[in-house]
């Protein structure tokens, strides 16, 4: 009720006043003096109760109600409803309540309804409300007839609707978790939103899609409904103002649905929504909404903040679901497009190959024609050229065909067209037709294909390719010996083997032999051409016949391929056409074999292959050799060794062909000069000598020549030797260059050691890794990089053991610590292998620095633990606390600082270690942190040049920017690794903070709910209450307080604490509080109240273990009972104190505790009684006794304070800023209650002064004020009254003066009010002018308020209370 000015007939008047002024004569119940006792009793009961009640009296059930009912339930029906028939007052719900009332009146039994839905029209519209109420009969004075009924009601609308919304949010969150597809997310959202048709009569989800909004989900409407357009373009025809919502990113409400759409479905109600809210679907941290949620609003609820906040939480859930699905989808698409790329590659090859066929035919045809043109025969030169063209087109065609076959089979389009085949005959024929190429290569062909016991069903074309590929493969890799083709019939099918005596295949390469594009590396072969597709094709073809192909090989001895097929059955019965590939295979094979016959002048190889320096002092021989070589290579000439060296100074030939016997510098000298210069050391040298005999040959070779030719030599032999020497030289050269480049470029360190372990050679990396210079080799063991035996005995021992192992077994692999020349140890991964260089065993050691690996592994561990720790924190502050600690350890940094900005834009800093302030940061750091936070960027490196380096990066969201500063211990440069780690950490933190902020938003709603349940705090003047939600970790709890006026000056005081946090606890709390309030009003004895509350709590899920303290102040005693709650604190005016720890029992709904004990304690004037929950006194790392002591000390110190002032001071000292971990509910009561204060009004006459003084004096004595204070107070009050009488009312003695006084703690406050003008004191202290100095002298405080309407004198004096 308002304490403002009271208009006796206005809406704000108390019901008691309204009733007093009512024109009762005009009503059926008549004047109150004539009312039956029962009616008078009921009306008085109602008027003194703060619990909402109404009563119906008489046959028409004339309507009476109290202030609480008027405020909570009746709304604008007051005062119209007063003394009106109940069925008129509640016409809209009479169908619901009429029968219940009828039953009460006829049977005399009370009713009880819990949370019953009633549609009230008390605010100008039909409203969805829930009430828990009981109707009880009122007997007439005769005690026999029922003359009326009383209703006690609690409105539970907020709780019921809050529960319903919470359930929707909970279900939505639970169902959306783990949905990976956007369609699934939308379908789930549809299902969940449809389930709450009360708050969400219809909903539409529109997703932003390139300038338009597309309908993605709908509930409560058909998709055909005109209110649900499938696509909304931006602009004029934007049915739902979606453009406005998307650009403004805030919710709007439209209220003209009927005008927009005509009739709409009504959801769970019987009336269609008139209003709709359009809520943006905004992803956290993103500026642009992904879409909008349109919700038709419950026509029976106001679109208040709670409703809209609920819708925004729904929107948040949907947005999060969609965002998750989209990123999942993007991930999936990436994977698919990779697979697609693979397919496309094969497809591309196939297409390209196909495109080659036509031009190939057009090339091959005319060439063929020209070669066979007898009328106009080609000249030998042209014939030779065109033969080359023909051979190569043939080869190209075979490659293309293979490619196509392969692609077709791989694409699943290849099928074996099997026909009955005499496989032995076919195979024999194929082998025979390939024989010329084999024989020409100087190889033997053996064909062993006896008739098979039965026909075999194979695809002839494919079989041909299988056999020919195997044969050509064998020929290619067999330089001498034989090739054996063998076919055998086994029980399961034919078995073909093709065996050669070729170079063989290293065992480790056999598994990859049939892989596409795989080519055996480094083997000798007739040709290095080829695509590496032949054997892969063989395997594919064999597999199409459900067969297997395998290979066995021995290096240097030969290879055997084995094909096993089933006999098979005819698939189609047809005998398809096929084009034999034989010619193409044969042609190519023949080409390889002719290549070894040097005579053919192959123009392709001319000139490009190198330069030969010919050195001979005989000009004829020199010219002859040059002529022989010129068709193939560039030829330089020198007349002797010295001349040759001059040429070599200018240019580097690929081969030197030199005579031995020459003037000046002879052949051996030239050879020696060449070999001793690194630039020319690898050039192959062929010596020409007239000296025959083995000795001279050996002499030449020992001198380092690559070959030795004895004159006279045949031209063919010369060319062959030159050719092979050039090849060898190129290989050697390339290998050497490659080897050096490779070894030097490796990040790994390479060391080469001799058989004793002496390091002969190291690469540049070793220099970098260990500080050893390559030029410093050889290094003898123990090597300089061994750890110091004294400082690191274990590491030294490990290296020593590894060294010994490598020397004996020839290999080692493991991790070792080596000593850098600078002294520090570095971890390495070390591999040692041994090789034989000639007869000598050499060791190659590879070392790889593990520092980065180990650091990366550590960081991975740190990141994992970082993410895990963050996920445990549910509020921004604890996310940051955990995050900063982890940051410091991940970076080994000196400190980490997070900065947020408060509403006023001032920076708020959290740091690890704690204690850093904004001003501790350097100016450039402040700027960088502000910039990155505002832009959402990072990481940025700041500092260096003496100042510590650090990284600034953003970690917050757009709404709540947060800037991080990670400060390193020194001004060292930061690595790219550290920056990328910082970026990852920042994004982890950002996500965690986003989560926490969502959680905080929910908490704010929950806090608002909690506060609305607990209600306003303006209760009784000497009772103050306070609820403070936890600040850390920012959770709503289940604490509550309650103050209940019980009449006769008695007051019920309650505090309680439900288990748990969050909305669940708040909901339980609301129910328990309502129940407890009703029970206190009804039962009044605290022990009984808690007994009854026990059984109530037993029926509410989550109410178990709730602790409650219930106290009733009754005169000068307090009765109390505690259900496991902390003891109340009683502090007397003189500073004595006690904790009320009697009357204790177990928490609610735990054990049977009936009857619960109840205790009584006396209280005194000025005593303070404090009820509280554990958040007020509990501290981490502290025993609770310390909390009790601190509380007592605080209250004793401030016992002079009362009410809000006391609570303010107490909370300020016990919960200093920085937050408390639990929520807190507090009730503070100062005895006596203000209802016992002194109030008197007297006529403005001098004769009234004495009686007034005496009654005030009696009151002051009664409260225990000391005698002197009493006298002083009486004199001061007397002065104020005298002044009012003398001056204000000289002309109208009928006026009155009112005096009120109250005791708060040990201070008496008095207020004297008149409505005249205060007289200022006379200029000289005349007789009457002494009043003011007297008052001022006697009182501690004096305030005189002079207004046109009158004068108020307020004074106060601290008194000594004596009992």
């Amino acid at each position, binding site marked *: 009720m308002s304490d403002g000015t009271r208009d006796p007939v206005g809406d704000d008047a108390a019901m008691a006043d309204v009733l007093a002024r009512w024109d009762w004569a005009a009503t059926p119940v008549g004047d109150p003096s004539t009312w039956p006792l029962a009616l008078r009793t009921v009306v008085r009961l109602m008027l003194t109760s703060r619990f909402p009640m109404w009563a119906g009296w008489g046959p028409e059930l004339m309507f009476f109600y109290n202030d609480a009912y008027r405020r909570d339930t009746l709304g604008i029906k007051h005062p119209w409803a007063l003394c009106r028939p109940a069925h008129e007052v509640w016409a809209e719900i009479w169908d619901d309540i009429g029968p219940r009332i009828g039953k009460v009146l006829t049977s005399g039994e009370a009713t009880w309804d819990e949370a019953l839905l009633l549609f009230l029209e008390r605010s100008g519209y039909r409203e969805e409300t829930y009430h828990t109420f009981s109707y009880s009969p009122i007997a007439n004075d005769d005690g026999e007839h029922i003359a009326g009924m009383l209703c006690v009601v609690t409105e539970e609308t907020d709780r019921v609707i809050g529960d319903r919304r919470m359930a929707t949010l909970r279900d939505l969150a639970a169902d959306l978790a783990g949905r990976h597809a956007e369609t699934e997310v939308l379908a789930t959202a549809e299902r969940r939103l449809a389930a709450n048709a009360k708050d969400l009569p219809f909903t539409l989800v529109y997703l932003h899609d390139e300038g338009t909004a597309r309908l993605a989900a709908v509930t409560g409407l058909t998709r055909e409904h005109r209110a649900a357009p499938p696509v909304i373009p931006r602009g004029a025809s934007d049915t739902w103002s979606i453009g406005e919502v998307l650009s403004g990113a805030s919710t709007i409400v439209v209220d003209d649905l009927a005008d927009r759409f005509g009739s709409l479905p009504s959801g769970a109600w019987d009336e269609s929504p008139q209003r709709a809210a359009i809520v943006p679907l905004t992803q956290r941290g993103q500026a642009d909404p992904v879409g909008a949620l349109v919700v038709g609003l419950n026509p029976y609820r106001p679109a208040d903040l709670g409703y809209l906040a609920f819708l925004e939480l729904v929107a948040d859930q949907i947005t999060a679901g969609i965002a998750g699905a989209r990123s999942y989808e993007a991930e999936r698409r990436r994977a698919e497009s990779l697979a697609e790329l693979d397919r496309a590659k094969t497809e591309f090859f196939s297409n390209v190959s196909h495109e080659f066929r036509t031009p190939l035919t057009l090339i091959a045809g005319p060439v063929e024609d020209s070669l066979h043109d007898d009328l106009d025969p080609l000249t030998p030169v042209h014939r030779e050229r065109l033969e080359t063209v023909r051979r190569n087109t043939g080869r190209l065609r075979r490659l293309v065909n293979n490619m196509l076959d392969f692609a077709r089979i791989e694409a699943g389009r290849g099928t074996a067209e099997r026909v009955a085949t005499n496989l032995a005959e076919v195979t024999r024929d194929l082998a025979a037709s390939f024989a010329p190429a084999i024989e020409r290569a100087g190889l033997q062909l053996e064909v062993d294909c006896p008739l098979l016991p039965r026909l075999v069903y194979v695809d002839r074309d494919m079989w041909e390719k299988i056999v020919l590929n195997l044969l050509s493969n064998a020929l290619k890799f067999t330089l001498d010996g034989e090739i054996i083709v063998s076919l055998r019939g086994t029980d399961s099918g034919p078995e073909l083997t093709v065996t050669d005596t070729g170079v063989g295949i290293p065992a480790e390469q056999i598994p990859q032999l049939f892989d596409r594009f795989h080519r055996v590396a480094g083997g000798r072969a007739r040709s290095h051409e080829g695509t590496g597709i032949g054997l892969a094709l063989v395997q594919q073809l064999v597999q199409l016949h459900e067969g297997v192909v395998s290979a066995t090989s021995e290096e240097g001895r030969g290879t055997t391929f084995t094909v096993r097929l089933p006999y098979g059955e005819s698939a189609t019965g047809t005998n398809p056409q096929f084009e034999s590939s034989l010619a193409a295979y044969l042609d190519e094979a023949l080409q390889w074999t002719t290549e070894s016959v040097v005579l053919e002048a192959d123009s392709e190889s001319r000139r490009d292959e190198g330069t030969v320096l010919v050195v001979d002092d005989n000009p004829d021989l020199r010219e002859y050799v040059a002529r022989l070589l010129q068709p193939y290579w560039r030829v330089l000439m020198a007349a002797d060794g010295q001349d040759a060296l001059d040429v070599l100074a200018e240019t580097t030939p690929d081969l030197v062909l030199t005579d031995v016997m020459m003037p000046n510098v002879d052949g051996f000298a030239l050879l020696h000069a060449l070999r001793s210069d690194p630039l020319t050391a690898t050039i192959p040298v062929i010596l020409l000598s007239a000296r025959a005999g083995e000795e001279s040959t050996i002499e030449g070779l020992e001198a380092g020549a690559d070959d030795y030719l004895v004159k006279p030599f045949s031209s063919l032999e010369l060319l062959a030797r030159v050719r092979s020497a050039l090849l060898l030289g190129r290989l050697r050269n390339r290998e050497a260059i490659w080897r050096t480049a490779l070894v030097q470029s490796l990040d790994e360190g390479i060391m080469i050691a001799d058989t004793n372990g002496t390091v002969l050679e190291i690469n540049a990396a070793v220099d970098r890794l260990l500080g050893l210079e390559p030029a410093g080799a050889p290094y003898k063991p123990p090597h300089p990089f061994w750890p110091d035996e004294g400082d690191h005995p274990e590491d030294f021992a490990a290296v020593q053991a590894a060294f010994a192992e490598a020397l004996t077994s020839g290999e080692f692999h493991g991790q070792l610590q080596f000593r850098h020349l600078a002294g520090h140890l570095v971890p390495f991964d070390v591999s040692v292998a041994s090789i034989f260089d000639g007869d000598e065993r050499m060791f190659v050691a590879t070392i790889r620095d593990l520092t980065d690996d180990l650091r990366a592994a550590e960081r991975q561990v740190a990141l994992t633990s970082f993410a895990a720790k963050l996920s445990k924190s549910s509020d921004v502050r604890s996310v940051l606390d955990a995050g900063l600690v982890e940051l410091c350890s991940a970076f080994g940094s000196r400190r980490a600082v997070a900065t947020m900005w408060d509403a006023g834009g001032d920076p708020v800093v959290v740091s690890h270690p704690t204690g850093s302030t904004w001003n501790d940061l350097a100016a450039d750091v402040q700027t960088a942190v502000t910039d990155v936070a505002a832009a959402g960027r990072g990481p940025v490196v700041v500092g260096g040049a003496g100042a510590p380096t650090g990284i600034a990066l953003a970690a917050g969201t757009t709404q709540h920017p947060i800037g991080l500063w990670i400060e390193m211990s020194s001004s060292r440069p930061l690595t790219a690794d550290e920056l990328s780690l910082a970026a990852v950490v920042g994004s982890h933190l950002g996500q965690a903070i986003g989560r926490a902020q969502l959680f905080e938003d929910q908490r704010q709603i929950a806090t608002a709910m909690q506060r609305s349940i607990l209600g306003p705090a303006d209760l009784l003047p000497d009772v103050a209450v306070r609820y403070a939600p936890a600040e850390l970790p920012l959770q709503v709890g289940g604490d509550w307080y309650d103050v209940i006026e019980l009449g006769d000056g008695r007051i019920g005081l309650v505090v309680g604490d439900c288990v748990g946090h969050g909305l669940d606890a708040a909901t339980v709390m609301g129910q328990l509080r309502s129940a407890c309030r009703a029970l206190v009003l009804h039962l009044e004895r605290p022990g009984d109240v808690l007994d009854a509350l026990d059984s109530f709590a037993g029926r509410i899920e989550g109410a178990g273990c709730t602790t409650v303290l219930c106290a009733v102040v009754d005169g000068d005693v307090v009765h109390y009972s505690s259900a496991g709650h902390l003891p109340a604190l009683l502090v007397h005016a003189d500073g004595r104190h006690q904790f009320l720890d009697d009357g204790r029992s177990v928490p609610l709904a735990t054990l049977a505790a009936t009857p619960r004990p109840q205790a009584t304690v006396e209280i005194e004037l000025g005593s303070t009684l404090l009820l509280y929950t554990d958040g007020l006194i509990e501290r981490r790392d502290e025993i609770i006794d310390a909390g009790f002591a601190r509380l007592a000390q605080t209250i004793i110190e401030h016992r002079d304070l009362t009410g809000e002032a006391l609570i303010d001071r107490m909370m300020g000292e016990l919960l200093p800023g920085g937050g408390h971990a639990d929520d807190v509910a507090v009730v503070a009561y100062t005895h006596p209650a203000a209802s016992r204060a002194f109030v008197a009004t007297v006529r403005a006459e001098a004769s009234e002064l004495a009686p007034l*003084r005496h009654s005030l004096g009696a009151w002051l004595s009664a409260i225990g004020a000391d005698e002197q204070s009493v*006298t*002083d107070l*009486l004199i001061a009050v007397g002065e104020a009254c*005298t002044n009012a009488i*003398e001056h204000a009312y000289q002309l109208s003695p009928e006026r009155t003066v009112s005096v009120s006084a109250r005791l708060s703690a040990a201070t008496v406050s008095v207020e004297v009010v008149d409505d005249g003008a205060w007289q200022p004191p006379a200029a000289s202290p005349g*007789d009457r002018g002494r009043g003011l100095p*007297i008052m001022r*002298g*006697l009182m501690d405080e004096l305030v005189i308020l002079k207004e046109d309407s009158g004068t108020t004198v307020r004074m106060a004096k601290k008194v000594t209370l004596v009992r």
Partner: protein
Amino acid sequence: LSDDLHIQIDRRHGGAIVAVAGEIDKASAPVLRSELDATAADQGPITIDLTDVTYLDSSGVAVLFERLRQGSTRLVAGPSCHVRSVIDITGLPLEPLGDPPAT
């Protein structure tokens, strides 16, 4: 006379001792004034004993100042005086209670 104000006059040589007891407020101050005026007119110098005054407001203070201004008057009070604080504040010249002078 007011119920709450009692005035006892002890006449002696050269004056009188006026013992005031009870409450002096706006209503009773005129009574005190007339008693004092009458006593002074009859008896000469007077001593006013305020020991038993339980209430004294500015009206009473005014009467006392008026009497003092006319001379031949002194105020006394014993240690148990209730209204000493008002007397101090207003500056009334109060003497300790002892044997009356000129006995």
